[in-house]
């Protein structure tokens, strides 16, 4: 039901707002994202700096950083995720109640970053946890983190509640908890969650046998 714009503005002047329920719902959710206080490494300092007085993150609704995952909406994975820490990150993500979002902040959380060749470095947190926004940088400036929060807010505003287009967390059958890797003898078991992450596309297409056959 589309409402005439003129009518809308007239009513607004009287203090009456007309908007779809979905918009109201999303406005409430996006304007009060509470992050989980979860800094791993250097990017955590930039996260704290962005919550400090100069780049005030509280303006965007991230008023308090909650210490417990049970009360948080957003997990900002800031810093290098090591293989020793990966099960804990996955566990924390599982403990967050839906709707939940994840921001991978910094090059290390996206793909391992400068420490990619490490025996203990997990090459990107998106191997085990679904990521909504990636922020490049080493470390990204606080303005970049604010831009990421705004991008996430736009993403939340565009989420629909109706049956066909609803997001993952609104779907009763979709999983909201992801399997936690175990410590193996040389590496994590499994090294990546294949449902969430696959190696970059254009190498998987072609196998050596196919090329040799052709």
């Amino acid at each position, binding site marked *: 039901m589309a409402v005439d714009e003129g009518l809308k503005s007239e009513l607004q002047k009287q203090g009456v707002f007309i908007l779809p329920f979905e918009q109201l719902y999303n406005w409430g959710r996006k304007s009060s994202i509470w992050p989980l206080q979860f800094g791993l490494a250097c990017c955590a300092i930039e996260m704290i700096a962005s919550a400090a007085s100069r780049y005030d993150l509280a303006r965007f609704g991230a008023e308090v950083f909650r210490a417990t995952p049970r009360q948080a909406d957003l997990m900002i994975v800031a810093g290098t995720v090591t*293989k*020793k820490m990966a099960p804990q990150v996955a566990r924390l993500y599982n403990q967050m109640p839906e709707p939940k979002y994840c921001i991978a902040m910094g090059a290390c959380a996206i*793909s*391992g970053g400068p420490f*990619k*060749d490490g*025996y*203990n470095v997990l*090459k990107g947190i998106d191997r085990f946890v679904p990521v909504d926004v990636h922020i490049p940088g080493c470390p990204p400036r606080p303005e970049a983190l604010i831009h990421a929060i705004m991008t996430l807010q736009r993403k939340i505003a565009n989420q629909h509640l109706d049956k066909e287009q609803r997001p993952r967390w609104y779907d009763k059958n979709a999983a909201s908890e992801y399997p936690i890797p175990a*410590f*193996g*003898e*040389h*590496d994590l078991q499994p*090294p*990546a969650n294949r449902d969430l992450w696959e*190696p*970059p596309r*254009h*190498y*998987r297409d*072609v*196998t*050596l*046998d196919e*090329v*040799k056959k*052709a």
Partner: protein
Amino acid sequence: MEAIEKIKEVAAQAMSGAKVEIINSTPAAQQPALLVDREHIYGVAKFFKEDPRFQMDFCSCVTAVDYPAKADKPGCIEVVYHLYSVAQKHGPLVLKVRAPREIDLCRVPSLTPLWRGCEFQEREAYDLFGVKFDGHPDLRRILMWDEFTDHPMRKDYVPPPDYEWEPTPHDETLDRAIQEGGITPPTAREELEKEKAKKK
């Protein structure tokens, strides 16, 4: 502090039977080290700690270095101790001790009973190099998880086959990508196609 030759003589006199040698560093560094054999390292270190001329009461840095076997020299793992003195404000005195590289034979006496500061650093050397320290109060892994079995800082450590396929792999990564992954990155694909074209 006195010259390194004098220190060596003093140490050799104090601990009878100790085999002490001098290893020099770069000409500019002026930090020669004393290489002591495994049986006497504890006694020599204790001597340096308690002797009133030295009073090395502060052990600053403990680390291990891996020297794989080469044609002329057998391999060894060398544990290096840097000692300083807070009381007399001199130092460093560098002690080195060597152990064979094989996992079961790689044992060295621990200096943690003398300097508590060695505790965590020796645990790290055990974790990353596989050197066992006899007499350490709590020798277990510190940086890697407990179920990990390798010693990653050794020169012959092979990382697990999980590594990112890079956009332009080269050298080892390319070889491993082809062998283990059975996957042909685009550059190798072009070369294979050129070979096919030549054969036709």
